[in-house]
């Protein structure tokens, strides 16, 4: 199983470096443009997929994904506001603005989760509402802005890996791996939550503390992903469900597997996005959604038919 996953990862990465929107094989193109892009897509894919898997467990809700908590809308809002001030000219500028937005929204979410009277559904609903507020403000800001000023932000909202630069991509990968490890180290407690909150409490797990820690770590992770590559949908929803079918739900095995397949799926989607309409590029979020949404429907219909009550 691992052999397969790692081989597919390496092949996809190699293909991602060798092929692109041009046929160029010059060293500078491979090294300065395509490699960072492959690295960034791996970091983002792994981060989004692991966030999805762990949020589903923590909220006992298989429909959770990174965007359910509204943090990505915060990032989007930050980026859109930043871009009207001309920040979209630089990777660091837009990424920084996006990260600030994500951080503000996740702090609000954490603030809500600290309140004693807010339970699991309250927290989830707060995330969904923050998401609505964020995307409405994005729409409002765009409506009020000069259209040419927000062009970069619009592209970014559909998932944009073109801003990958050598150092930034590696930094994203390192942060993503560290955060994933810190989630992975909580595997046994996360497993206890798979049979529900009461069940985990009766096994001696401090559910409140665990949930708070995981929401905090995933919001950082989502902040890194969204600010690095914009909104890439469905990876966080589809990859965990597919991997659970073969690896089971226990997180000790699930999380590294989900990380690898998440990385593969975004690298692969980006490759498709660069190659199909050469020399034009599709936004990578469009590719993941067009492949991811039908795949998810298929899974859901299969599961509904197969699950017995």
């Amino acid at each position: 199983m691992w052999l397969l996953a790692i081989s597919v990862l390496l092949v996809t990465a190699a293909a991602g470096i060798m092929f692109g929107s041009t046929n160029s094989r010059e060293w500078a193109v491979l090294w300065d443009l395509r490699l960072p892009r492959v690295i960034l897509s791996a970091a983002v894919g792994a981060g989004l997929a692991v966030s999805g898997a762990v949020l589903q467990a923590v909220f006992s809700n298989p429909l959770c994904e990174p965007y359910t908590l509204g943090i990505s809308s915060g990032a989007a809002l930050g980026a859109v506001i930043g871009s009207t001030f001309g920040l979209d000219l630089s990777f660091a500028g837009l990424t920084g603005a996006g990260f600030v937005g994500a951080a503000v929204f996740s702090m609000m979410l954490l603030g809500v989760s600290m309140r004693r009277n807010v339970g699991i559904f309250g927290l989830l609903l707060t995330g969904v509402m923050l998401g609505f507020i964020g995307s409405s403000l994005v729409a409002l800001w765009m409506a009020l802005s000069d259209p040419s000023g927000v062009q970069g932000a619009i592209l970014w909202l559909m998932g944009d890996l073109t801003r990958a630069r050598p150092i930034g991509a590696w930094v994203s990968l390192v942060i993503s791996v560290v955060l994933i490890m810190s989630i992975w180290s909580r595997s046994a407690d996360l497993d206890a939550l798979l049979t529900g909150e009461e069940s985990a409490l009766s096994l001696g797990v401090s559910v409140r503390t665990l949930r708070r820690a995981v929401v905090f770590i995933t919001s950082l992770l989502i902040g890194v992903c969204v600010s690095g590559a914009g909104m890439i949908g469905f990876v966080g929803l589809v990859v965990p469900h597919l991997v659970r079918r073969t690896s089971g739900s226990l997180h000790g095995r699930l999380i590294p597997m989900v990380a690898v397949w998440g990385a593969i799926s975004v690298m692969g989607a980006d490759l498709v996005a660069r190659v199909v309409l050469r020399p034009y590029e599709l936004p990578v979020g469009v590719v993941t959604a067009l492949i991811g949404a039908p795949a998810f429907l298929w899974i859901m219909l299969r599961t509904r038919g197969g699950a017995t009550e």
Partner: protein
Amino acid sequence: MNSSIIPPMLEVVSVSHSYGPAQVLSEISFELERGEVLALYGPNGSGKSTLLKILGGIIEPSVRSGIHFSGRDLFSLDRRSRARSIAYVGAELRSEFPMTVEQAVTQGRLPHQREYAFGLNLKEIDRAAIRHAIEICQCEALSHRLIQSLSSGERQRVAVARGLAQQPKVLLLDESLGRMDLQHQAMMTSLLRRLVAEEKLALILVTHDPNLWTDWATRALLLSAGRKVSWGLVADTITEGNLAVLYPGAPLRVTHSSSSGKPKVFLETPPEVRS
């Protein structure tokens, strides 16, 4: 001189709980020793489950005192050591995610793990406990099936197996036998009786069918609207007078076995319904 007195294993002194303004438990007290079986009995909403969940660490009581385990305040224990001593088994064991019966029972070993960061690190003693729990609850044939694919009665067997894999000193069963078929209910009660007699397991159970326990429980605590109606030996508490307080107007009759003298409860069919 008092130091020679051994405190009761579980001592509950005047526990109260309210959900917001609604008082669901008021000043409940009882004691439980090793090898004893206590049945909590009363109508829906009488506070039985709330009491059991407080003991199992699932609900924090609004007044945080009055429960002692082997003389120590239950809330001064950390959660995991509490889970090693007291296991709570609910009415349902379910998951939104694919999980096998064996994986579910294995979770019962979580409180016994010292290092468990990247998943449980099972030792031979853990594996033996898991195998044993699966075997005595007759779940071997199910062990590789997904819990989603089981009937609710089978899931209850798995839930009890997980509770036993926890190797607790006190087992709390919250309506955990109600959906089993008669054969498995009989199997489960005789298993529990054996564990109580041989391994001195203490048991607190909540069920709506008193005849599951009247002939073997040590004591019964009768609750109504969060208040104690009666606490004592089963034969002294299960009387038509007490049942009339719990279920006013219900035509309940108590008979006593001629051999053991243990009470049995019957619901008489009202005359106008008879054909």
